[in-house]
Each structure stands twice: as C-alpha cells, then as structure tokens.
C-alpha cells in the first residue's frame, strides 16, 4: 500500500516536465519492450503508422504479479489495440489499461510520447 503511494508520488511530483525513458531504437515495432523508472516497470508498445504510435502500461501482470506484460502479443479489434497477457491471455486495452475479459482487472496507464528519436515519460494527464 505505502509502496504504491510512494511510486505514484514520485511519478507525479518529481517529473513535471517528463524524463527520457529510452531511445526509439530500443522499441520493437508492433511488439513490446519493458523499461524501468525507479520502482516502476513499464511496458512500451510501439505501433508505427497507427493513430497512437506509442502506448505505455504497467509491465506487472495483475494476476500473477510477474513482470511480463510487455512480452504479450499485441492484437487489434475494431480499431482498438490491446495486449494479450502471456500467461493466461487476458486482453488489456492499451489506451486505458482496462481488461476486456474481466472488468475487475486493470493495468495502470502511463503518459508517454516519442520526440526526437526518444521515448519520454510524462506526468499523468488529467
């Protein structure tokens, strides 16, 4: 509990202007990679040529607690993108982290952007 609060605070307060997470070349097109920011593990999905090219959600699988979400397969249904969790294939919508097959599950979402060949992590948008 307190750990979660700590993480959220760092994310909110310390980086009002955003920080560089990694290089664009670290991304794998149409697939995911994981990056770390402090205690946070973030799954980055790069979908070049689509409306939103970069998504970031928590890398931690809410069911198994294992850091694996970035290793899931990216799928699309009716124009919306999701990731299928590697172990039990729950589908999480990349735009808001909502689990499409079990509404009690949700991935935390992060705000990111691609700028000058770099991946930026931004403070949460309200």
């Amino acid at each position, binding site marked *: *509990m307190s*750990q*979660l609060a700590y*993480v959220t605070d760092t994310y909110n307060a310390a980086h009002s202007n955003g920080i560089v*997470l*990694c*290089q664009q070349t*670290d*991304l*794998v*097109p*149409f*697939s995911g*990679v*994981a*990056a*770390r920011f402090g*205690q*946070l*593990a973030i799954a*980055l999905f790069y*979908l070049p040529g*689509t409306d939103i090219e970069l998504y970031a959600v*928590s890398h*931690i*699988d*809410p*069911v*198994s*607690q*294992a*850091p*694996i979400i970035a*290793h*899931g*397969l*990216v*799928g*699309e*249904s*009716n*124009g919306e*993108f999701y990731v*299928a969790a*590697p*172990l039990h*294939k729950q589908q999480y919508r990349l735009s808001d982290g909502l689990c499409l097959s079990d509404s*009690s*599950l949700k991935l*935390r979402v992060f705000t990111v952007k691609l700028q000058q060949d770099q991946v930026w992590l931004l403070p949460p948008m309200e």
Partner: protein
Amino acid sequence: MTTNKTKQLLVIGNGMVGQHFIEQWLALQQHSSDWQLTVFAGEDRPAYDRVHLSDYFSDGDADKLQLVADSYYPDNKVQLKLNEPVLAIDRDSKTVSTAKASYPYDKLVLATGSYPFVPPIPGNDQPHCLVYRTIADLEAISASSDGARVGVVIGGGLLGLEAANALKLQGLEAHVVEFAPQLMPVQLDKDGGELLRSKIEQLGVSVHTDKATSSITAGSEQRLQLNFADGSVLQTDLIVFSAGIRPQDALGKDAGLEFGAHGGIAINHQCQTSDSNIYAIGECALYQGQLFGLVAPGYQMARTAAAVLNGDDSHSFTGADMSTKLKLLGVDVGSIGDAHGRTPGSISLRYRNDLLGEYRKLVLSPDGKQLLGAVLVGDNSYYDTLLQYALNGIALPADPQSLILPQSSDKPLLGPAALPATATLCSCHNVSKGAICAALDNGVQDLAGIKSCTKAATGCGGCAALLKSVVEHELSARGVAISTDLCEHFSYSRQQLYHLVRVDGIKTFNELISRHGRGHGCEICKPAVASILASCWNEPVLAKPHVALQDTNDTFLANMQKNGTYSVVPRIPGGEITPAMLISIGKVAEQYQLYTKITGGQRIDLFGATLDQLPLIWQQLIDAGFETGHAYGKSLRTVKSCVGSTWCRYGVQDSVSMAILLENRYKGVRAPHKIKMAVSGCTRECAEAQSKDVGVIATENGWNLYVCGNGGMKPRHADLFATDLTNAQLLSYIDRLLMFYIKTADRLQRTATWMNNLEGGLDYLRDVIIYDSLGLGAELEAQMQLLIENYQCEWRTALNDPQQRARFNSYVNAAAPARSEFGFVSERGQLIPVRQVNSKETTL
C-alpha cells in the same frame, strides 16, 4: 444411524444393455444415494462392445472393446461382480444366489441377453465346434484356427456372414452353410438374397444354401466332416454355429416369471416383468410377443427401466424399429421395416441391375403414400433417406420410384432440412432432430460437442452420416459457427490462408494482411500466420518481419512459467545421451540453480531461468553440443524410443537409430500444432508409439507405421497405417503425411482431430499418402525436403544476431532484475516458485 437403510438394486448381466442401464441409472441418481447398485457379470471382463466384436480379429485387441474403464465402477460406487453368474432368484425372500453368496434385493433387473443357438445335430459337441458371441468365443476360434485350413459357418444370417469374414481374416478358406434357400432370409427378399450371394462368392467365400446338416463326424483330410441331408459332404477344420440366438431366460423361467412361447421374459411398456419388483431389458426381454436382437431397442429399454425405477413413470418402451444397415465383407446391405411386404395390400417397387450388382426394393402402403419397408443390396447411400421416410411416416413424393433409381438428377433427397423435429436421428440413444437443435441453441458449437452432450452416434454408429449432415445444416442455418474465418482480420480458414501464402509466394504477415485481410491482426491470426510462413519458407521465427507475430513462448524460444521465469529444454534426440552431455547439462543447471526434472518425453527440462539468463544458458548448452528442443513451438517435440535391438533381447530393429533419424529429420518443422513421435523395437511397444501422432513399431521385415494418436486431454490410440515398410518408404510416408497435415489442418488441431474431420478419414488419408490419389506425393516430399534443408537451431541464430539477442534484456534502460525478485523457495533441494496467493494489488 442405520435407520436410513440403503436399498439394494441388483442387475444381472453386464452386457451392452446392462451397462447402458448402469449409465442411465447413475445419471439419474447424481444427487441421492439411498441405493446400492450391484451388478453380476457372467463373463470375466466388464461390459464390452459386442456390436464391434469382430474388430478383435482385425486388430487383435480385446481391451479396446471395453465400454468403460475398470475404474468406472469403483468411482461410481457400483459393485461389479465379475465372473459371478447368478444361479437362482428367490422371489419370496427377494434374494438372488451365486456360487459364492446370496444377495438381497429391493429391485432386480434382468439383462442376461441371449445365447447362440446350436442346432441339435449329432456330433455338434466335438472340439472345434464353436460359437460367435463373446470375446472368449473369439479367443477359442483364434486358437482353433491355428493349424487349420478350412472353416465353416453354419447359418447364413447377419452374424453368420460376419463370422465367415472373421474366418477369412484368420486366413482360412471360408464356407457358409444355410438351411434356407437364400442368405439373410430374415432381412432380405429372394432377389436381394441372390445378389448378396453372388457378391459374397466373388469375395471368395463359398456359399451353400438349401443345405440341412444331418451329422458331424471326423474328417479324413480335415479335422471334421459335415454330412448333409442330400448326401453331399464338406470337410473342415472348424465349425462356427451361427444359427440364430435364443433369449437367456432360464433364471426368469425358473423363478416363475411369465415368458413367451418361443422364450423371452415378458415385459410391459415399463419393462416390468410379471413381478413388479423385477425388470427385464435387452435381448432376454419379450415385448408384445417380440424379441429384439439389436442394441438400439435394448438401450431404449434400459433408459425406460432406469427412469421408471427412479420414480418417473412418464417413460415407456413401445417397441422398436428393427431396420439394419451393414457392410458385410464389404457389401452394403440394408433392410428397413416390412422388407418382405407382408402388410396386406402393400405394393412393391423394385430396381435390379445385375451389371452393377445393385438391388433395391420399396414396400409401399396400399395407397402408395407411405413407405413401409425397403431392401437394399450393393449401395446403402439410399438408406438414411428411406429410413426417415419409413420411421417418420413422411408422405412419399408422387413418383416414389425416383427414390431408388440411380442417378436421376432430381432424386428428391430427403435433406436434413426436410426432417421434422420429432424425427429420431439416433435410435441407440433416442436423440431426435429437435434435441440436436436444442443443444445447438444452448451453445454447443460442433459435431464433436453434439456427440458428447447428446451421445448421438456413439452407439452402433449407424446414424453418424445423417447426424453430421443435420448438424452442418443447422449450423449454417444459424449463420454462425460454420464460418471457418480465422478471426475478424481474415475471412479465410487456415487452410485457405496456407494456399494464398503458397500460391502468391507471400513472405510476411504485412503482405498477407494488406492483400487478403483487414486491420492489424490479433493473437489468433498472428501466430497462425507465423506458423504458416514458417511451414512454407522456414525463415527463422525471430527474423525481423516475424518477431512481433509470435506467441510469447516462441518470441523468447522458451516456455514462460507461472512466475514469469522460463524453462530450458535442450533436444535429446531419441532420449539417447552420453554421460559427458549429461554432465554438461548438470553443470549448467547447477551454475544457474535451475530446477531440474526428467520430462515425460525422455528429456531434461531446466526451470526458473530469467529472460536475461536465457542467452547465457543457451550459449553454454550450444557450446556443449546441444540444440534447441522446440518445447515452446508448435513443431516436433520428441521422438521417444526404446533401446530396441541394440540391447534388448526382443528387439527386431534398431529403434534408437530410427528415432534419432526421425527427430533430426523433422526437428524445427512448424505445424498447426505440436507433433510427437515414438519408435518401438518390437511389438511389446515400450516406447508407447501408439499414443503418438506418428508411431513406428519394428517388425521382422521392417516397420509398421501408426498415425494420428495422442495423449493429453482426449487420448486416442493411433491407427495402423501401413505395415512392413522399408526405411525409405517409412520416411516418404511420414514426409507426405506431415506435409499434408500442415497444408490442410486447422489452427491448433492435432493430427487425431484433423484425421477425424477429414472427409473419408483414415481410408482417404491412405489414398492420398500411400496411393497418391491426389498426385501430390512428389510435391509434398519436395516441400518437406526444403524445410529439412533450411533447418537451423533457432537459439544459435538468435545468439549470433545482436538485434535478436537484445530481445532478451528484461529492461531496455536498466540492469537485469535479480532472480530473487521472482520469488523462489527451496523444496527437496531445488528452487521452485513461491506458492502465491493471488492478489490483484500491484506491487513490485
């Protein structure tokens, strides 16, 4: 405590009908247990499929016929008393007695079946005079065939002809002796009988009709001699009597139950005998003066008796249809309803073609509007339609002859659509078209589901074709499930996509989806297409255009475990490994503290590696001479082997070398699902080859090939495909088989399901693979050759390519996580994942 007395339900006879009664009864008793069910079996084995008894001679395996597993009885608290026939029923004290004890009953069910009738011919009790009813009888026939040359069946009815076929299969010169002027006098008319005779003679079985046997004496050339009333004789080494069956009704008769003039315990429509505590079902029961020598009516009685005993009076047995359809020695024969036209005023229509060897007759009601009966010889494709007309009283078309005339293009086929909802499709399990539709409406989606939920087509199997057409018709009428679209991105089946890839020479997913699909793909189509591309061109799965298509396990060339770590499975072809290699695996496992286990596939699995450790571990394994085992891929897993002739005193071929050869030949080939193989060095089958997709068993002369078996959720024994093959034949058949499977199977379909869904099944597969009926043989072999030539160890490739290797960094911007972050504890000296309670709160 003891006030709540358990009531005793006793069943005498564990034949097909007795067994069906048990199943029906248990299904009704799921929630209450105030009954103890005890079953007495006269034979020394639990119920088996008598209808398919003759399979014993084609595959020599009696156990395959058994209807339920041995554990079924204890699991369901049924006491099964094998080899303990009931000797008497005492209705006053309500007990039955056997040689061992007496047992009280509250309710009693007689399911004692029939016994073969042996005509009172002098000399009929000598050795080598046999009958055809039980597995023990077949064992006796088999033993008697040893050293025999000629076999005679007395009786030219349905069973007699089946027995003659069995004798032929035993390699004997077979004769059938029939008292009546024609074969199958009960089911066929004169013309039908004549045609059947000529067909059977063409197959090499001698038929002697109009022959009364007056005595059996010792033979001069053969063991025995049949002396006929007309003075002629016939010598033979063994005789099988198949002169009809008689109800096994002695117990009931002795107990004073009412019985018929020609035998059979009389029952009412609730299957009750003249004693309301005693029921009779199956072949020992007589209903309104009629005996029923088929399973379907027996099953109906079993169902009725179970329901009535369970307090449900709404069920009743009201007689049954005795129509039959069968293939005797490869000849189609069908008989429906009033085949002899005995109904006063009935009209008959016949078609007889001696050139084609076909005969068909319709028996119509006096007004010509209803079908009362039919006879078919030579072509049973007319049977299902005619049976439905007869059973359901469907009004005949204006020109009923069109129903039996050949190739009249507008033959009014009674399609599945025309059947009324009340039409019974499966008489064994009493399943109507309406019940099928209801099941489909309740969400059952395919034929297999229908079979398992309604049991239709799981009895005699006679209704299978009709059931399939009804299910397919109903599915397509519902517009849903028949769709073979892979997913929302492709309106094609896997098979169609495979063709598109091949024909257009498509090399990437993007090319395929932009030309033939829409959207961006999903976790269904991406791996399926990745597998097709790999099967066609065999480019490394981690090459740039393919990497984002793979399932997690393929992406990381390892199987992800429940805590997010991975397993490592090096290939150990045929299970053979040198001590040095074994030591090197041990060293790696020790260094990385990997949990180590011998798998069910004769190799070693190392568990608990983190993503970052995988390349390090694999580098060491590759340096030690290992390659990837593809434990993660839909591809060849293991080729299991026994030691074979190298060491084993029984081995007749070198099964280890063959297993290694096969494993090295097919490793890395991507397929719709995983493939497993095994090679045994002799018929003892220590490698369990018959449970594999491809099973090879050594013979004195080469190899027997078995195909399409699997273990797993729904085990299926492989079918014998070809015998005594040379090495070259074996490889060519397996090449063709695998490639044809890759070409035509659905996604995630193992070979067994694939074969079951192939129109024509095993025979068709043999035509394609062995006889090359599609002319595809050379092409299939060439395509397989390409895959074999393009093989590379994916781990070696990945390690040599910096871009691929980078994928194994857990984080793109941070150091590898410590292994302890994944949570391990020690058990029996090794590390295993922490046993987690699932919590949805996110922590790191």
